[in-house]
């Protein structure tokens, strides 16, 4: 048997992300084992819920390594938990694929640490590129103060200049705020703002979008990949969501992908299986876990052993593995292995996602 | 020379003049009683003297020093302490610890000595403990020393409060109805205790409704009614004062009736 470990935030503030991740892993393990495992070896997954608490995440990471004797770890739903798990993985020499966004996870590159989601920086670049093509250069920003929102806000501020974008006004809201009209009213009153960008996940972006419509702001609104799921349209309401753009993955538009698209079979397979099993829509985050798992299985299969170091080496040699998020090719100095093309610019039209690339 | 002097003390609670222009003085070793009908303002007077309430007008002097509205703990450090009509006990501490707490001023030292259990701190603790036992014996509570204070009966708690106050070795002691809840025999014991304290030079200010006790041990009596001082004098003078009889004591017959 091959022992895999995972520490995810299936409850707590990031349950939104961690829950589909956990479900995905459980589903895929079943699937692979049903198909005979890896090279005939069954996968045993030990999954812990760290509740988004970095301290717990570290304890679970230690437990996975020392007590459960896993050969590889997937997890770290948030940047904070990832950073906690990361040092254990590095110390003990256990390959670790993170599901969190921050760039600091793989920059600088660490021997045993990989990650599947795009970095926040890439999302910002994707958005700014789209703005540029629409002739937008002055924007307002409203971000959640949770880890996701704050981190992406910082990255966007960092790269805005490179794209000739000026951020005229930056507001924030707390993750569980009920009303963002004051912040949006301030943005509305700021002279020269041409579009608004809202990094965040959870209910915040839905409420922002609804308040946006309420106070009659008719500038283009950009959301982040943090809300890339059908749930967002449901929560926001079709009317308010109309015209919102965000950088998403192929998974969201699985149905309308062109037949020739390399990702189509992968995303369709995952989407159908997940929705059939759990009766809820897939989300980008589940996709991250899917990709991490596939990468790991692929590496273990190629390594032909459950020696952590060999798995690590195999992981680093991954080439052109098609995932839901994009196509991965790792190298010694790139442990993310995705490029901007993995992001697709999506727009909500009539309550559905459309690709505008 | 009086040790405690009250001058023109007064306070109001939303329109009600609970105490109005009350003056008197207490000498060391003297027992001065304050009597008066329910709601006359006796406890309120105590509260002002002991710094629990801030007087509206007037002054309080302790050994000639103006101590008006000074915080109770400062007054305690100057040798003035009291007991309460509504029991104020450290419920979750043992009976002995209640009394030891009364020795706070003797026992306290620098905080680091307490934290590190410095020999000096331990020495002080040991001494105080013996003193506390002695006091408990004096109020006949030595058997209950290790009992949680909340478990005592009402009368026992009254005596515990007195012991705790004595632990301070006060110069001025204010006793608010010390004999309430005690029967005639028990009251006599408290009588004796108070007289003994006065004999040792402590100035005692006493509020009590048990007239037998008051008349027996007071050197001087101050009578309050509706917050005003209506009379003062020796027990004999006061007990013959018609105003006092009308407002408080009632006719001879009634007094006898009530006190047996």
């Amino acid at each position, binding site marked *: 048997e091959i022992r895999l470990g995972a520490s995810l935030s299936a409850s707590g503030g990031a349950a939104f992300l961690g829950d589909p991740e956990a479900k995905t892993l459980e589903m895929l393990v079943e699937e692979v084992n049903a198909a005979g495992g890896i090279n005939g070896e069954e996968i045993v997954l030990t999954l812990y819920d760290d509740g988004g608490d970095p301290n717990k995440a570290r304890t679970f990471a230690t437990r996975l390594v020392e007590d459960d004797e896993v050969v590889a770890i997937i997890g770290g739903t948030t940047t904070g938990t990832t950073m906690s798990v990361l040092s254990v993985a590095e110390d003990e020499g256990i390959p670790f694929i993170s599901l969190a966004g921050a760039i600091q996870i793989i920059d600088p590159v660490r021997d045993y640490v990989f990650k599947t989601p795009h970095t926040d920086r890439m999302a910002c670049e994707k958005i700014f590129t789209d703005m540029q093509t629409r002739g937008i250069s002055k924007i307002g920003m409203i971000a959640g103060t949770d880890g996701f929102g704050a981190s992406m806000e910082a990255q966007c501020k960092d790269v805005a200049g490179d794209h000739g974008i000026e951020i005229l006004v930056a507001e924030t809201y707390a993750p569980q705020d009920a009303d963002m009209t004051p912040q949006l009213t301030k943005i509305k009153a700021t002279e020269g703002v041409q579009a608004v960008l809202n990094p965040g996940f959870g209910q915040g972006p839905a409420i922002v979008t609804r308040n946006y419509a309420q106070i009659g702001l008719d500038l283009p609104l950009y959301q982040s990949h943090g809300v890339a799921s059908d749930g967002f349209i449901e929560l926001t309401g079709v009317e308010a969501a109309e015209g919102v753009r965000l950088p998403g993955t192929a998974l969201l538009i699985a149905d309308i992908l062109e037949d020739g698209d390399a990702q189509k079979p992968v995303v369709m397979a995952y989407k159908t299986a997940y929705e059939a099993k759990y009766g809820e829509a897939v989300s980008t985050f589940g996709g991250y876990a899917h990709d991490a798992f596939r990468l790991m299985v692929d590496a273990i299969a190629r390594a032909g052993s459950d020696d952590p170091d060999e798995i690590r080496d195999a992981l680093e040699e991954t080439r052109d593995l098609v995932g839901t998020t994009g196509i991965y090719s790792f190298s010694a100095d790139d442990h993310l292995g995705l490029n901007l093309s993995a992001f697709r610019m999506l727009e909500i039209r009539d309550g559905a996602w459309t690709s505008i690339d | 020379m009086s040790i405690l002097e009250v001058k023109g003390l007064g306070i109001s609670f939303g329109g009600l003049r609970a105490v109005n222009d009350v003056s008197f003085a207490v000498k060391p070793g003297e027992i001065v009683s304050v009597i008066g009908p329910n709601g006359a303002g006796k406890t309120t007077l105590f509260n002002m003297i002991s710094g629990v309430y801030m007087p509206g007008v007037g002054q309080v002097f302790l050994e000639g020093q103006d101590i008006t509205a000074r915080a109770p703990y400062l007054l305690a450090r100057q040798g003035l302490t009291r007991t309460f009509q509504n029991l104020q006990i450290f419920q979750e501490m043992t009976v002995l610890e209640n009394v030891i707490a009364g020795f706070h001023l003797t026992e306290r030292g620098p905080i680091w000595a307490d934290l590190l259990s410095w020999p000096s701190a331990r020495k002080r603790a040991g001494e105080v403990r013996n003193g506390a036992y002695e006091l408990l014996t004096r109020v006949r509570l030595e058997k209950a020393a290790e009992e949680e204070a909340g478990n005592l009966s009402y*009368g026992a708690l009254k005596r515990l409060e007195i012991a705790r106050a004595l632990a301070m070795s006060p110069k001025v002691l204010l006793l608010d109805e010390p004999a309430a809840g005690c029967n005639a025999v028990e009251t006599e014991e408290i009588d004796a205790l108070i007289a003994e304290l006065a004999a040792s030079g402590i100035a005692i200010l006493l509020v009590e409704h048990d007239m037998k006790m008051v008349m027996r041990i007071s050197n001087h009596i101050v009578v309050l009614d509706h917050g005003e001082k209506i009379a003062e004098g020796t027990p004999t003078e006061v007990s013959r004062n018609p105003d006092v009889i009308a407002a408080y004591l009632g006719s001879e017959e009634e007094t006898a*009736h009530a006190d047996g």
Partner: protein
Amino acid sequence: MLTVEGLRSAYGRIEVLHGLDLEVKSGEIVTVVGANGAGKTTLLKCLSGTQPVTAGEVHFRGDRLTTVPAFKRLKRGLSQSPEGRQIFTNLSVEENLRLGAFLFTDDRVERDMEDAFEMFPILREKRNLAAGGLSGGQQQMLAIARALMGRPHCLLLDEPSMGLAPLLVAQIFDVVTLLRKRDVTVLLVEQNAFGALRIADRGYVMETGRITMSGVSGDLIADPRIREAYLGL
């Protein structure tokens, strides 16, 4: 009316009542005297149901009362003015009295309240003030008045004279005598043993959780042991 047989009660594991027998007949005034810590309060608490009984029985007007919860005993006609007064300090004087008649909604409540104010005029003056602001003696009056608002057949008074001025002590004893005329039975615990025995029909003497003596008041007053131990004569 009220009979107690073999009553035992304990705080935690420490037993303080060691099998009491006691009887109060209808229309009687019965007093219990005893030193501090004898268990008088505990006895009354057992009767009002606020202290669990470990053994023995309490019967009241023919019914077994031993296991009836405290709040139901008033309905059966047993009312208590507890030690330490136990008034509702955050509520006004009037609300305290009104709650004394919690079980009733008829017109008599108003009249009873007037009676209470007659009896203790100071309470009328303070009717709208928080009861916690009353002086000690005033609170004691309120506690007694509140107990009367419950229209008891039998009234349990725990040291009602505590903290009251001599005039009022006399008045309280008058009230108790008056209650008998209204067919209210009274069980009176008093430190003012002389006063209590003078108005009572019978008396019990309690010592460390046991009844050590009982009899007609006059006999008890005359008993030298009692005169020395409790009356200080």
